[in-house]
């Protein structure tokens, strides 16, 4: 196996790690949080019932922030493994 291949293996290994990390966060804010919406609604968050807030805004903010962070992280992985473009 050439060093190019091991670099690619390393890159894919780290890419998969990032994928699992981000899909876990995604899973929590897509499903787990809303599964407990009626319990969360007992808590008030700046006037909103928390379960309603998470569906109307909270999860959405998490997704947006998460994606910009993911982009940074993946670009770093690509660079460090020498497979970034240019």
């Amino acid at each position: 196996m050439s060093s190019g291949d091991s670099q690619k293996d390393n890159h894919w290994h780290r890419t998969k790690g990032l994928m699992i990390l981000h899909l876990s966060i995604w899973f929590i804010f897509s499903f787990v949080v809303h599964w407990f919406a009626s319990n969360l609604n007992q808590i008030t968050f700046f006037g909103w019932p928390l379960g309603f807030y998470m569906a109307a805004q909270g999860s959405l903010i998490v997704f947006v922030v998460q994606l910009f962070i993911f982009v940074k992280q993946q670009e770093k992985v690509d660079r460090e493994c020498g497979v970034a473009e240019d």
Partner: protein
Amino acid sequence: MAMKGTFIDNLPKVYGMYTGGFLVFIALMAFAESMGMSAEAIGIWFVTFTVFIYAYIGWMSRTMQVDAYYVAGREVPPVFNGMATGADWMSGASFVAMAGGIYMGGHPYLAFVVGWTGGYVLVAVLMAPYLRKFGCYTVPDFIGTRYGGNLARFLAVLVLIVASFTYVTAQINATGTIAAAVLQIPFELAVWIALGAILLCAMLGGMRAVTWTQVAQYIVLIIAYLVPVFWMSMKQGFGSFPQFEYGAAVAKLAELEVMHQVGVLKPVAAQAGLSALTVKHSVASSDPIAAFRFVTLVACMMMGTASLPHILMRYFTTPSVRDARRSVAWSLLFIFLLYFTAPALATLTKLQVLDPSLATSIIGKSIADVNALDWIVKWSNVGFLKIVDSNGDGILQINEFFMRGDIVVLATPEIAGLPAFISGLVAAGGLAAAMSTADGLLLAIANALSHDLYYKMIDPKADTKKRLIVARVLLIGIGAAGSAVASLRLTGILGSVAWAFDFAMSGLFFPLVLGVWWKRANRAGACAGMAVGLAVGSWYLYMVKWGGMAPWWGIDDLRFGIIGALASLIAMVVVTLMTAPPDAETQAMVDEIRVPKGKSVLDMSH
């Protein structure tokens, strides 16, 4: 004004000027209104002015190059591609129907808001960068090359057409509804005018024209969506950033719901197509079935997002893999701006109607007074609203006021007593949302037929000119078919939109994801996955919608993708494992798409 450099270099300047020009136009309309121009004339001005601009951009972007026609020359910068995706994505349903759905349906309806944003996490993490590296023109192009063989390509085209055609009829329907209302012409005629406007944007320049009109349409639709909400919020004293401050309004609504007995008083007699408010705004049911229905709807909308070809193909237009990934994040940000506003809009509008301390409220008022209000008269006349004094006391109760949820966004400026030019702006925004999505969908269908079916399978020797002429003829044909179906008015706007997501996820989600993430996945498995997913999903939809079958665990026709995708996954994995692994060349190709560096896969094979 002289421009240095290419069009791409000048994008911020061009669209900055465009946005400024649009704001000036809004100010002009406000001025015209104060000078006595009628609301109808203002509406017509807004719609014709914006459509004229889109058509102008479409004309300027005309092309006879294959790369420009199919993937906008792969030169769209991430931020602008994000805006174009935003317009491509946010349909008539998002713009017109979503806030109304939340207004009528409360918390359960927010599953759409969560699903239609979170899906982009899947797009960014699992798909877009890899498909961009692949370098294809269409989604079936990826399936056809990754798995090999005409059958795989054909099945991908089939799923694409079923999903996108379901979706596009709803968009032509929405475009026609708005055109009919503003221009005051019959709906059956309006859908054909709508189609003409849609084709003007897409036909001459393909993806390049659609890209640059979609950016323009995003700017119109987001301004049109945000302005009324900010205005209404300032008027009601909920601060200048209602999205972050409407918590107090939600709390207030909960008190008013008790006072007006929302959910206690039920309608005495049903009104066809209309409904009275019976659901509390922010209450989430503690019933596990309700939670299950919420998360399954979220799952369908997300996986559908990540499988819809008209969205995925937007990421083929960026200059690089890195830009494709960045562009998904920008897309989500631009979409988020509208989606986190929709619940605020629904909340503030509902408050306008329910809060007796506001002059605009109608519940608890005398029915004679309410019937004299302009917006009540206007929307009653077209049958979208109805007041029935079922207990005969002359006072309007919550269960005596019926309306179609779809009208909330369009009627909000009137309900809240905002000036008429705001209504014209909102109509232009709704039109931009529906037209831009229709453009993307029509192009996705026509491109799959012209590139995958005609060029790749029927006539691989066709020259560029012939290919592009075929592409345009197909575009017109598909558009005409869509309009013909839309004019039959088979389903409401939202029903068919949700189905499009379910069809797409049933047939394409796993073949696409596993094509990148599972090297072992092979042709037989992918074909089985697409065929079984589409067949089982369609069968389940038919059985629960028309066949009289009781839905399994509350999975109704809006969620049939759960069943379809599950069947697709099982079929794909089982058949793949029973047949031989893909050859070394295919495995090397998968390795290649996993790294951003280097030429695109299709470029190397040419």
